[in-house]
């Protein structure tokens, strides 16, 4: 056909990534602090808070008092509006922090003032500066009250709209991990360590070259443009049956709701790290239940061999799903798939064309029903296939259990056997 595409020069192939971690608000700074102490190479940490007193005890080298003139460094007092205002005030400085980074991790605890209010603003600024923004946030415990929950939800919505991916850790789910004797300190420490774990998993995925490599682009394809909650889980196991154990742990992870999340997700990234003794059969054992769980999902698989993991196996999983109503509104998120020629001109964002560095996404234009029809018909074969595949995932919102609704579920190998077999196996009855 045409001339072969130009092969880029070798040194450019693997660009060195600049990664930054911003801890926003009290909880975010704590998490960033514990992550900083956990030791990450190549990661720059920055603690951002409106409360200068809390900031002073944060074990992070770089600190920034947000909105010092507005709050006088006394905190946002649990008011998200104040947090937001403080962040808006310091836009220029924040932009300076963001500049030149490829990926920015935001750690925040939603529900309070600074984290809830400022995090979405920072995410927006970071995104405008051209970085991929991954937010790892905690949602408050139920005992913290309805108001904080409400604030957290509002903040989460804003953050979802602003960041590339939001990974949520509802603290309430932590109770599954805790026993009677866990102290409050330990409880929050677990929350922090989960965030750190998440950070570590993604960081490892991005910085270390694997046998089957998963990199920046893969992560983007799972998270970018989805504006949806991604969930994150890691599991580690050692010993004879480590593959089975790791998978079992992963499927039983409190954040995955007993594997329920996996069935609903449409994109899953899984990265396995093991020692030189990692065996092919083990990878197979790992992937087998996963493949069964998320039949319709796009699975990206990576494996890395690291001496540190001798005798151990560590699995990191990121699953993300698009909310159902988003599907028609978002033709195709990836530029290489998007059939630009067939999309009418008014559908293209001229701004995005002029400034490719900025990844600001304009709000979807309002289109009439006829227009929508026309657009769908105009799409290529590949795009149509994709949407029909997605269509299949629609049912199973409510899992039917009939007469077993109230009884204890029978679970084997991560499957709820009370759900009809033909539904679980996806056998169609026409």
């Amino acid at each position, binding site marked *: 056909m045409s001339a072969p595409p130009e092969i880029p020069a070798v040194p450019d192939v693997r660009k060195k990534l600049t990664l930054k971690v911003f801890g926003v608000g009290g909880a975010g700074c704590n998490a960033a602090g514990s992550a900083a102490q956990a030791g990450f190479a190549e990661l720059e940490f920055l603690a951002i808070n409106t409360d200068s007193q809390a900031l002073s005890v944060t074990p992070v080298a770089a600190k920034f008092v947000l909105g010092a003139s507005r709050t006088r460094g006394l905190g946002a007092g649990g008011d998200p509006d104040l947090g937001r205002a403080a962040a808006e005030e310091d836009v220029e400085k924040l932009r300076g922090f963001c500049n030149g980074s490829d990926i920015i991790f935001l750690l925040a605890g939603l529900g309070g003032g600074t984290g809830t209010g400022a995090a979405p603003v920072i995410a927006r600024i970071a995104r405008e500066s051209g970085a991929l923004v991954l937010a790892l946030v905690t949602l408050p415990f139920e005992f913290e009250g309805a108001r904080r929950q409400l604030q957290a939800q509002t903040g989460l919505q804003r953050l979802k709209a602003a960041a590339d991916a939001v990974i949520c850790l509802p603290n309430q789910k932590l109770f599954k991990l805790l026993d009677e004797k866990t102290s409050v300190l330990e409880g929050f420490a677990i929350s922090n360590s989960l965030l750190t774990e998440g950070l570590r998993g993604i960081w490892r995925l991005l910085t270390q070259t694997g046998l089957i490599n998963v990199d920046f682009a893969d992560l983007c394809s799972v998270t970018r443009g989805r504006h949806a909650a991604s969930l994150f889980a890691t599991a580690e196991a050692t010993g004879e049956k480590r593959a089975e154990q790791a998978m079992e742990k992963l499927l039983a992870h409190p954040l995955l709701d007993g594997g329920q999340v996996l069935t609903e997700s449409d994109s899953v990234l899984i990265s396995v790290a093991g020692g030189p003794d990692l065996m092919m059969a083990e990878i197979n054992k790992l992937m087998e239940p996963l493949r069964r769980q998320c039949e319709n999902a796009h699975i990206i698989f990576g494996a890395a061999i690291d001496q540190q993991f001798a005798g151990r196996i560590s699995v990191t999983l990121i699953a993300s799903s698009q909310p159902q109503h988003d599907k028609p509104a978002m033709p195709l998120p990836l530029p290489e798939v998007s059939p630009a020629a067939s999309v009418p001109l008014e559908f293209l964002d001229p701004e995005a064309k002029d400034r490719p560095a900025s990844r600001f996404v304009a709000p979807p234009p309002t289109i009439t029903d006829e227009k929508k029809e026309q657009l769908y018909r105009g799409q290529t074969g590949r795009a149509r296939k994709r949407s029909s595949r997605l269509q299949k995932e629609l049912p199973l919102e409510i899992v039917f259990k009939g*007469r*077993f609704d109230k009884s204890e579920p*029978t679970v084997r190998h991560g499957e709820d056997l*009370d759900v*009809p*077999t*033909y539904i679980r*196996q996806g*056998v169609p009855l026409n």
Partner: protein
Amino acid sequence: MFDSSSIIVGLEIGTSKICVVVGEINAAGALNIIGVGQARSRGVRKGEICDATLAAEDVRNAIVEAEQMANVEIRSVYLGVTGNHVRGFNNHGVHPVVSADREITAEDVQDVIKNAKAINLPSDHTVVHAIRQHFHVDGQNGILNPVGMYGARVEVDVHVVHGHIDRLKNSIAVVKGLHLEVDEIVFTGLASALALLSNEQKELGSLVIDLGGGTANYAVYAEGIIKHTGVLAVGGDHVSNDLAYGLKVPLGRAEQLKIENGSALIETAIKGETLSTPGELGLPQKPINLEHLRRIMALRLRETFELIESDLSPLALLEHLRAGVFLCGGGARIAGVRELAADVFALPAFLGKTNSISGLKSALDQPEFATAIGLVKFGSLQQKRKPANGFADSLKKTIEEMFKR
């Protein structure tokens, strides 16, 4: 009229029905079935009581029926237990022989079994059975009875069946509430195996699957000893439920369709065939696609067998089963289920016949009664053993203790 000790009653509180079988040990010491009673079960889900009042009422009906048929008064029963919480595994016990001349005594045997029973169970679980498999004396394998032998160390392999203590108590409480004694509780999978298998079949190696209403209980015998037991809380109820959902019919109709038109296999000939039956009012109901019906059933049953197979295959037990697979319980009535089992396990499969006991032909022929008959057989074995070591008494005591707690 009868001495109460010669009457043995088996009671199975099943998910779909409650079954009572009355056996009598005649003068010659042989077991004879003299009465059966049954009632539809309404208070049980997945083999466990979910409504004690209804269950008690149903148990009473079944007991009364059996009493009338056998013309006896039932005072105590052997009670079958099952449920998702019941688990079986093999354990090992060691005991040093202490006597001066190193002769192994009956006490040593009791002690080694006690050691084998002292297992690391979850705190809320209790041992239902500890069945001895083999003894080892100073490393010598395959000893069936070491009493009177000489050695320094006696070891034993036991198969332990254990269950959640409170959930076991639930069914015991229902029986006690009717002023009946519980002689012993018996895992139903074990009881079915006792009813169906001859000694020869146990020796050759057999898998017994009791396809009940709410659970599938299974037991593996090889080399004459019990190797494995298990419960899968999937049964006929699940089949009906799948049909009700898949064919969009009420549960009652699904149940009826399962019994009248069900099959575990999908014949290629039925593709596109439909079934229209008149409803209660004589008006034709929504036609049922026969192929869908069969497919839903076949998938569920195949999965059930496959789950059992996946439980057994890591233990390398399937290679030892030369006699084959024996099916009982209501699920054994499904057409083609034998062929399906043969296909999944790659072993010959049979419908179990309780032919090792004499008595009422009508009771012995039905696969549903296998468990209750097995309970009676278990009781007769216990009673024979009773004068020897009082083993049954000790178990009876454990049940009583369970209640005192």
